[in-house]
């Protein structure tokens, strides 16, 4: 079998220990705090007030103009307060706190749209995806409806990103095994909306059981338009630029989008969410979260309602076995460390990782850059991170820009492989921030 790959990158120790454990539903949390901005774009405005009754799927925040997604209640109960919390990026975000009545009643608005796929128009599908509040579930949280809209007439391939190249995370892996049907349905809907004949499921070769499962599902459907691309396990294979290059040999030009080279890429769970919205009318109110790390007693995947606190998830997984030193939202390569144990699960939370002191990389010894070239060797964008970091440190931002610092995808491969322990990618982020601010 031909395995697809890209130049650069690195094999990161996988730690995919939760792959064999079925995902479990989180017991109803007592309260949820649902942020109104879980996506890239304009934050939603609250449309409920404290004291209002809401059900699962009731719209609690809307975006009228601009890029954005509506927000739905993930539990049934009473709105307690509308307050401001800090999100995973550290910015204050308006959030709606809902007290759970544990009845799990569905809102009257949650009804199947009742459109047959053959008859559905692109506009109808986009509308359904928009109203379901679906944004990219891989972590980037770009509103999916806008992604589809911008791809109309431009693409010849739709790809489902099932690479899951971050260590520890197995949420997509479990979804492939447990809800493979939904993912394929979602892909069919997208292909139909865009009039595309070619659909690709891109899976890394550390998930061969999922490949077998998807193969048998595809066979049962006798579907000719969809194929599976098995990719070598390598970080950052799940970065859409690397994925497009690996599977199609096309390079996304700097500053352009995948649609500009004829590809639409959505995450596996996003595809499943599109399927649920289209066939059953269920908005995006829950997701699978991998709860892992050496501090967690029973690591596993949890189906959690949006807005449930990290502590709810950790307690459900048996609590801590060691003193936690770092809590990460997302994978260890690109995820954000949190300072609050009670941060809420959002649309972008693919994992909650809890590490003790010995797992924390602050323990690595730090010397000056020794010019070894490991970062250059491994950079998937073929940059020279050592020089970029040096320029950033010395505030020589113009030179950094000339050396294409803006092409950096911040995957962290450079820092991971740096013997000197230099925080290369962080210095690059600083340079990018300054350059972006100058341009504004």
């Amino acid at each position, binding site marked *: 079998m031909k395995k697809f790959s890209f130049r650069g990158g690195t094999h990161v120790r996988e730690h995919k220990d939760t792959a064999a454990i079925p995902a479990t539903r989180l017991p109803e949390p007592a309260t949820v705090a649902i942020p109104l901005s879980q996506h890239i774009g304009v934050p939603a405005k609250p449309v409920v007030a404290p004291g209002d009754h809401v059900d699962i799927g009731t719209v609690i925040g809307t975006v009228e103009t601009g890029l954005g997604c509506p927000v739905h209640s993930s539990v049934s109960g009473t709105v307690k307060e509308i307050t401001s919390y800090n999100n995973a990026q550290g910015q204050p975000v308006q959030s709606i706190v809902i007290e759970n009545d544990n009845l799990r009643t569905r809102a009257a608005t949650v009804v199947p749209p009742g459109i047959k796929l053959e008859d559905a128009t692109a506009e109808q599908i986009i509308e359904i995806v928009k109203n379901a509040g679906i944004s990219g579930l891989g972590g980037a949280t770009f509103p999916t409806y806008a992604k589809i809209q911008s791809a109309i007439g431009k693409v010849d391939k739709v790809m489902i990103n099932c690479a899951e190249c971050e260590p520890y995370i197995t949420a997509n892996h479990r979804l492939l095994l447990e809800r493979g049907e939904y993912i394929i349905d979602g892909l069919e809907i997208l292909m139909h909306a865009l009039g595309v004949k070619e659909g690709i499921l891109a899976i890394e070769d550390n998930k061969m059981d999922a490949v077998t499962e998807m193969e048998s599902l595809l066979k049962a459907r006798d579907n000719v338009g969809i194929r599976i691309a098995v990719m070598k396990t390598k970080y950052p294979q799940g970065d859409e630029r690397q994925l497009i290059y690996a599977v199609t040999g096309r390079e996304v030009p700097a500053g352009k989008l995948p649609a500009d080279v004829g590809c639409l890429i959505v995450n596996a769970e996003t595809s499943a969410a599109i399927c649920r919205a289209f066939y059953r009318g269920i908005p995006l109110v829950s997701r699978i979260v991998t709860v892992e790390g050496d501090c967690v007693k029973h690591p596993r995947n949890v189906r959690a309602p949006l807005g449930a606190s990290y502590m709810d998830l950790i307690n459900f997984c048996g609590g801590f076995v060691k003193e936690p030193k770092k809590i990460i939202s997302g994978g260890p390569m690109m995820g954000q460390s949190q300072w609050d144990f009670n941060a809420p699960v959002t649309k972008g939370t693919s994992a909650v990782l809890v590490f003790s002191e010995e797992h924390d990389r602050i323990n690595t010894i730090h010397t000056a850059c020794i010019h070894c070239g490991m970062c250059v060797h491994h950079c998937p964008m073929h940059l020279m991170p050592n020089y970029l970091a040096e320029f950033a440190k010395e505030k020589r931002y113009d030179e950094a820009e000339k050396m294409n610092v803006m*092409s950096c995808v911040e995957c962290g491969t450079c820092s*991971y492989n740096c013997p000197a322990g230099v925080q290369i990618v962080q210095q690059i*982020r600083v340079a990018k921030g300054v350059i972006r601010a100058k341009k504004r």
Partner: protein
Amino acid sequence: MDQNTDFQNKLLTVSPSPHIHRRGLSTASVMKDVFIALLPAAIWGSYAFGWRAAVILLISVVSSVAFEALTEILLRRTVTISDCSAAVTGLLLGMNLPSSVPFYIPVLGSAFAIIVVKQLFGGIGKNVMNPALAARVFLTLSFAGKMTIFYPFRQTVDAVASATPLASLKTGALPEGTTIWNLFFGQTGGCIGEVSALLLIVGGVYLLIRKVIRWQIPVAFLGTVALLTFLFPRGGLTAFSDRLDFMLASLLSGGLLLGAIFMATDYVTSPVTPWGRVIFGVGCGALVVFLRYFSAYNEGVSFAILIMNAFVWYLDKFTMPRVYGKERREKKPKA
């Protein structure tokens, strides 16, 4: 649950991603690998030239580490001897000395390498030239007489200095009684660490397997020397087998292997791009042949590498890899 609430009062570390790091990889681990890779050749040198050689190596390593600590204390920098780079510099310097030198020579060399070449330029990672090589050249120029007395293999007691293979190669032939195999196994005279070609290659293979060095510099360096010495041998050799012998003798004698495998690949003073490394290696190789043929010295490896050290930034700049999603040359917008 009580324990959990207890934990919740603890402060968490908030730091930028990535939150993990390649296990077991550090500057010290890299330097230790280089040290280990050098050891077989160093031990062979001590066997070939006796206890004097071992003492010189020891003095060199100890004084390098001591000077590093001392300078850093005086300059109020963090003491970085635990990264093992000073020990590697010391060992390399010692291996680049003949076993005949007085014991103050390695001390002087270490002082020059560490204080002048390394610390005054800003310490690890900031030096422009390879410290051990710069020190060797400094010593060769300052103590020309002492630095060129080479004892023959396994004869250290009142030995008479003999011609090294390199000296007689200037006329196109190996010294009487020396074969290519002697050179390969290290049964010859020369600097302490450079005599055993076999063990230097073993060390190089170890570094390649451990991915401490990449193949480009050694292969380009040695390949260039091989090509040039084969095409343009000295002494008017014409027959194929003579040319081949001359080429092999040139590759195996002197400090070429030590230089190509361990000194030209020094991270700090070599390019980071694959093509930059190839050009760097080719440049070193061409200069070695040129200097060996036409300079006043028999050996040209140190000078060649030091000269190429000066070009590292330009080589990196002009061999910059093509960035994903970008043209190699950006079309300049018309003004």
